[in-house]
């Protein structure tokens, strides 16, 4: 088992870098918030960033075990359909997709 001092140092290093990445842009961008370009980015970015995260996380799940591609595809389709038909109640859609995936992996 690694030494306790090493583990604490690693958590501290990783934590400080993460904190800096989150805090510095807010500090630097403060004077830029009034700029039209930054405002346009603020308006255009959210939907796109979410889509990118969704695609990358989906891909990671498939890459982690390629044999599960079909299960990922089915569960994703169930999530989308339930969300579009079920009046966009996020909790319901997430629960339906996840239950479907767990059942496909463990029961079949």
């Amino acid at each position, binding site marked *: *088992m*690694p030494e306790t001092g*090493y*583990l*604490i*140092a*690693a*958590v*501290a*290093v*990783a*934590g400080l*870098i*993460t*904190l800096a*990445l*989150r*805090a*510095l*842009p*807010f500090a630097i961008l403060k004077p830029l918030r009034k700029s*039209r*370009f*930054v*405002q*346009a*980015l603020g*308006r*255009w*970015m*959210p*939907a*796109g*960033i*979410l*889509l*990118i995260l*969704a*695609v*990358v*996380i*989906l*891909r990671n*799940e498939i890459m982690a075990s390629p044999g599960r591609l079909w299960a*990922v595809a089915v*569960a*994703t389709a169930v*999530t989308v359909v339930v*969300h*579009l038909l079920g009046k966009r109640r*996020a*909790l319901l*859609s*997430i629960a339906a*997709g*996840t239950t479907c*995936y*767990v059942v*496909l992996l*463990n029961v079949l």
Partner: protein
Amino acid sequence: MRPQTRAGLTDSLGVGIGIYPLGIALGVLVVQAGLPWWLAPALSVGIFAGSVELLLVSMLAATTPLLTIAVTVFAVNFRHVFYALSFPIHRVRPGLPRAYSVYAMIDEAYATYVLMPAEQLTSRRIITGQLTMQAYWVLGGITGVLIARSLPQPIEGFEFALVALFVVMTLDAVRSRKELPSALLAGLAAAVAILITPENALLTALVVFTVMLAARYLLTRRSGSGESGAADA
């Protein structure tokens, strides 16, 4: 309970069913890697960035050099730089609440509050939501430690909640913000990134997407349409 506290708790529920099972996965991994149990809560308090926490478990078990860890964390979490462009931080009270909000800027917190109309957001609501999200992580990790110590085989597949969460949030974002052009550009950026840098697709996709939006801004401004200005008014 104050209404804004209740609103924050409700906000966090949707992402909670995605975060909690991932927390359990983290706790299970920590135990299975032969690391001490306290590392699960330590990661969720000291770093609080889900993907990096899961990544670090195997790196720590292999006693990876600190410099390698630092570079990896920088690369994986660099996307947080982009959140500052659009997160409604001005709705959070300056001082300790704002400092906490920045520290706790996980993907799920960004996604939850960037989509809401800013005028509906209060400091109490955002901070409650973020604190609860962190609680899901910490408690999930401890649950995972307990499960790994008692069960030989945990049930597979709960990590799909994270996939479902982002699929659902993307659907809502594309509809409520009428941002189909952005979604198409983002899809294109993701495809390009996966093709040219499969190992670091997330970061590349975000950079490509930002460059595309900069080009879009220049084009709409040059075409003289008041679109970018009028939408602000």
